[in-house]
């Protein structure tokens, strides 16, 4: 079997992983950057047209290609095959990668909260629909309602508008005053501030509502109709897509599988991005939601420290603290309102892989019991969608992760010697 060895192995080629790979490789270490997709850049810099990428993305991706780091694309890590050894599936074939230092930069995914009709084709994530559109999904002339919470809603609206979509409404669940306070705070970060002003300008003809959220989606075999509310009154839209997400959830599965400590839902790291497990570092949204700029800083710190160049990392400590403050402002401004946790009805499906409805889950008292009796969270996504949802609805915590952490072929699992 294909068995390779590197000084520094990085999982996840988003901003954090790319910055880590550049930093470690430029210090002369042998580096491999592993990613599931065929293109480096993670979700935020995803896109088939390099011309439509932000300049900073092109700069980092060019730097990556000049750094000497190896990029192992279309490769999914499925678990640990022993100390210092990752088991993965690369383009359908098993492969193993040996590491001296490991950097986990697996990023975050969107938080979905179940409501009646959320399983209909046409109901997607907000970043999710934008991702699809960046890779050729047709939205020109399609009517899109965007709902949920966070700056990603506006970013999605902007991206979809550029691809010809008709944005019917952007419904943000938090209040205008929370968003305004967050906006004023951005004055300290000119880059972000101008980004926000630009977005608001592009959005000037798009109806934006605050303190409003989706209550149901209807349609026969696909989405046709969305109902929104502000708690006092409800209104409807005919539409083709409901792009809907309520924030971000870190992808902690690999770190958890490797024995890293989790604190408040995120991987716990020190100022050097070092986890409690020897030689394993974590960087980016998996340690806290602070956007691509924060991830770039953390990635560089992790890359330098993994390469033994701690002095170079120290220069970034101030920036790191600053982006962490941005992250906590973000969490405060877009905190979820309690109404969102009770949108699902008894017959609403919560686990989309195994079709387990809310009413069934109500008969259990914890995640483990629900899994054992209903198969909730035991389908192909392994609870990545319903897990965070049941945490919001019932307060149940994810207890453990079992390998393989991603669906794999039996041939890949028995490939261990």
């Amino acid at each position: 079997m294909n068995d390779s060895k590197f000084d520094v192995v990085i999982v996840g080629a988003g901003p954090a992983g790319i910055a880590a790979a550049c930093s470690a490789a430029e210090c002369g270490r042998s580096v491999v950057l592993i990613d599931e997709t065929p293109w480096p850049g993670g979700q935020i810099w995803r896109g088939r047209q390099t011309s439509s990428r932000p300049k900073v993305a092109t700069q980092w991706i060019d730097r990556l290609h000049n750094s000497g780091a190896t990029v192992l694309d279309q490769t999914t890590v499925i678990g640990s095959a022993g100390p210092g050894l990752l088991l993965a599936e690369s383009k359908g074939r098993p492969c193993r990668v040996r590491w001296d230092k490991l950097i986990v930069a697996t990023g975050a995914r969107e938080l979905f909260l179940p409501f009646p009709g959320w399983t209909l084709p046409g109901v997607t994530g907000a970043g999710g629909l934008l991702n699809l559109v960046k890779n050729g999904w047709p939205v020109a002339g399609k009517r899109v309602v965007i709902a949920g919470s966070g700056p990603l809603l506006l970013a999605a609206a902007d991206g979809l508008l550029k691809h010809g979509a008709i944005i019917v409404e952007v419904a943000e669940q938090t209040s205008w005053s929370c968003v305004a306070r967050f906006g004023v705070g951005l004055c300290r970060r000119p880059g972000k501030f101008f980004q926000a002003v630009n977005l608001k300008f592009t959005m000037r003809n798009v109806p934006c509502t605050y303190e409003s959220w989706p209550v149901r989606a209807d349609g026969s075999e696909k989405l046709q109709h969305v109902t929104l509310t502000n708690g006092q009154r409800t209104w409807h839209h005919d539409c083709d897509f409901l792009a809907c997400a309520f924030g971000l959830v870190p992808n902690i599965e690999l770190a958890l599988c490797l024995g890293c400590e989790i604190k408040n839902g995120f991987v716990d790291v020190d100022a050097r991005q070092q986890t409690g497990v020897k030689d394993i570092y974590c960087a980016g949204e998996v340690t806290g939601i602070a956007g691509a700029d924060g991830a770039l800083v953390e990635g560089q710190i992790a890359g330098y420290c993994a390469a033994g160049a701690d002095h170079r990392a120290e220069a970034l400590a101030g920036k790191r603290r600053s982006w962490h403050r941005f992250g906590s402002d973000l969490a405060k401004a877009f905190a979820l309102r309690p109404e969102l946790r009770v949108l699902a009805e008894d017959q609403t499906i919560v686990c989309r892989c195994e079709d387990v409805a809310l009413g069934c889950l109500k008969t259990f008292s914890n995640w483990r019991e629900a899994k054992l009796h209903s198969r909730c969270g035991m389908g192909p996504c392994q609870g990545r969608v319903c897990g965070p949802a049941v945490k919001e609805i019932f307060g149940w915590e994810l207890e453990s992760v079992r390998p393989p952490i991603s669906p794999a072929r039996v041939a890949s699992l028995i490939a261990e010697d």
Partner: protein
Amino acid sequence: MRVPSGTVVAAAVAIAGESRFRRSVSGEARGPLCGMGTCMECRVTIDGRPHCRSCQTLCAQGMIVQTNE
């Protein structure tokens, strides 16, 4: 059908006018949710290989994609 290079299979399915990517265990129609390879709702059969994530797979010459299974 022909698509520009860099198009993912999920997008090609949508261009072909199909919104029902797969059938859930209870028979519901499902389509892509996360667009980033985690939710598995976009899975289709590609060249006879079942359960491929169409949002993470680029279209290739002569590819045969089966949906709504």
